[in-house]
């Protein structure tokens, strides 16, 4: 068969090839405009899956980081309150030690009793500490009544002064159900020993009782506070570490996402230049081929 080309072939070839190149240009233009390599799942199904997973992971990581920061802030407030309570207990122990010597006057004993009562009130106030309207020693309950009873209220019992929430508030710092950190401590568990000890001292001072006998209780109250502070410090450190880990994981995930999603602008711009050149060449070559006709040569 003699090879021949019909006029229709020449036009069809030109329009098809130009159409293909224009489509390529449009896609490249879209990549440049959006900065994204993939804008529809059919362009790269595996990449689309990767992008969705990365975006979901990033959203979760952002939450873990935000939650860790929230936890660190709350634990900071807890630590501050416990630190102040510890100082109060040290002062109560000093008063007890002084009064136990028996060398002080009655007036000094009355003054000591008033000071101890102030310590009891201050400890109660610390137990009722609010952070952004939430009781940090009562499960972070919002707008809740003070969990510790007023020492001046009738029938005050330091051993049962707490009536707040029994919830231990946890924050979520990871995907696993166990990846949680407790950021509160129930007030009754951390302040009761201290309140009982200070109330006993006040009672001993008021009744000329055995002040020396109260020193052990005061020490117990201080140690309970101290132990909880150590725990708070450990949990704060855990949350700070977690925030740092999350920041690293976020950076890695962002890198993954960029790899899957972002257009390589150098490559795309180079492809754009190639496609433009090819389109120009196609149109020019097509124009020449189409114009070459016997009719022109014969001036028909």
């Amino acid at each position, binding site marked *: 068969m003699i090879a021949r080309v*019909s*006029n*229709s072939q020449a036009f069809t070839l030109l329009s098809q090839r130009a159409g293909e190149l224009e489509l390529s240009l449009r896609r490249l233009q879209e990549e440049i405009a959006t900065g994204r390599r993939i*804008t529809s*799942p*059919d362009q790269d*199904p595996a990449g*689309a*899956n990767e992008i969705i997973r990365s975006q979901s992971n990033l959203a979760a990581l952002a939450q873990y980081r935000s939650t860790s920061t929230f936890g660190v802030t709350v634990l900071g407030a807890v630590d501050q309150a416990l630190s102040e309570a510890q100082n109060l207990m040290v002062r109560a122990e000093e008063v007890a030690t002084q009064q136990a010597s028996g060398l002080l006057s009655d007036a000094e004993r009355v003054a000591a009793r008033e000071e101890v009562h102030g310590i009891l009130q201050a400890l109660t106030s610390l137990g009722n500490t609010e952070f952004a309207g939430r009781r940090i020693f009562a499960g972070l309950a919002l707008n809740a009544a003070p969990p510790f009873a007023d020492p001046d209220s009738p029938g005050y019992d330091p051993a049962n002064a707490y009536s707040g929430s029994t919830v231990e508030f*946890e924050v979520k710092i990871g995907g696993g159900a166990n990846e949680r950190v407790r950021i509160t401590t129930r007030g009754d568990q951390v302040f009761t020993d201290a309140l009982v000890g200070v109330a006993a001292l006040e009672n001993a001072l008021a009744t000329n009782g055995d002040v020396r006998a109260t020193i052990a209780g005061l020490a117990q109250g201080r140690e309970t506070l101290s132990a909880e502070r150590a725990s708070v410090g450990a949990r704060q450190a855990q949350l700070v570490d977690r925030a740092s880990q999350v920041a690293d994981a976020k950076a890695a995930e962002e890198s993954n996402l960029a790899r899957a999603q972002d257009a390589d602008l150098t490559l795309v711009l180079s492809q754009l230049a190639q496609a433009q050149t090819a389109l120009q060449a196609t149109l020019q070559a097509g124009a020449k081929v189409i114009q070459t006709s016997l009719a022109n040569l014969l001036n028909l």
Partner: protein
Amino acid sequence: MALSPVLSIAERALLANDTALEVVGNNISNVNTPGYSRQVPDFRAGEPVVDVSGKLVGTGGEIRAIDRIVEPLLEKRLAGAETSKQQQGALSDQLSALAGVLNDLQDPSLSSTLSSFFDALDALANNPAGLAERQAVLGRAQAVAAELNRRSASVATLQRNADDGIVADVGTANDLLQQIAALNVSIASAETGGQKANDLRDARQQAIVKLAGLVAIQTQEDARGGVSISTSNGIGLVTAGTLVHRFAVDDGAQGLDGLLLHTPGLVDDAGNFLDVAGTFAGGAIAGLLAARDQSFPAASTALDTFATTFRDAVNGIQQAGFDLDGSSTAAVPLFGGTGARDLVVLLDPAADPSAPRRLAAGTTTNPGDNTNALALADLRTTALAALGGVTLSDYLGIEQGRVGEDASRASDAAEVANLLQRQLENQRQAVSGVNLNEELTNLIRYQNAFQAASQVVRVANAVLQDLVSILR
């Protein structure tokens, strides 16, 4: 010397070249006519005769026929390629539209609204009594439900559009069957004198290719030039000028939008509807059927699976807790509905201002209890058995990959089919297409021949005049 044969030879030459010029003109005028096959005059030498001197002398040239230049095998292959091209193209178009509807790569997407929902739950877990946080959870829940509703409705619309396309294509196919039958009659009638009805054959071939684009067919030409058409599974459609069976649609299964779909089939002369398997094995109708009956229901099922699993997982935790007022939420689910199409948030703040208080953030009545909110937030990373052991987000990613893969595969197949069809069309054009340079050459050739024949007439006339003057 006899002058009459010379004039006769010249006359035949003039007529033959005049016809040839007409053929060339026809070719040139149809240079851009789709489906046109170039035509060439079939010149033959006349039968020689014994002249007065007893010698065997030629009688000049003539055109016996005007041939249509086609490669029958190529025409058949082209019809088959058109079937494949239209089938793959229709499927690719539908799946591309589906990928667009389910696209999670552009915000707002189901994936991003789901992430926002879990972000809101995390915020609720950090402040379980916060009304703003509770309001945010309900707002995000409504966004997830609305996106699922939209997707489900869009998939149903795609299915309905595909069904409408099938009905329209069936109508077009019947029109083409009628055209082919009528052309069979016209061709048989036109060719009784032994001449080829070239243009009618081109028109019929065009109709056959269009029909093959809608449904896979087989063709067979009979001795009288008629083409019999049958489906790919052998059911007759056209024989000569008769329609043996017509395409038709009947009520079919229920579609995703709740309305009935159409089952394409055939009807015989008696009006009986025949739903024979394999009748629509190829062509655009087959592509639309594949999308309508397989791809769209699969996508809809995946959406429903996601929606019901999400609904049950959230409700299971919501109903195991206590609301902000300390009441049990055992009878207070967050989500209602039976699937993606009608998933709804039952705690609607617009209808009930106290709705945010009904969210169960705790598993006890203790103030500040956030354990239930934490459990809800844990759903973000919980592998769910109903989703095949993956998380909600991973399921969306996998589905996105599956839909994208289907669309990509269909697009590749369509491109291959398109290339094959284009290659065959190219071959057909190489054989049957008009080349203007070739035609112009022929134009000059036949013009010259015509001029030469005119010259023969002039010379014969001069000789005759000379003879007449001698007689005077």
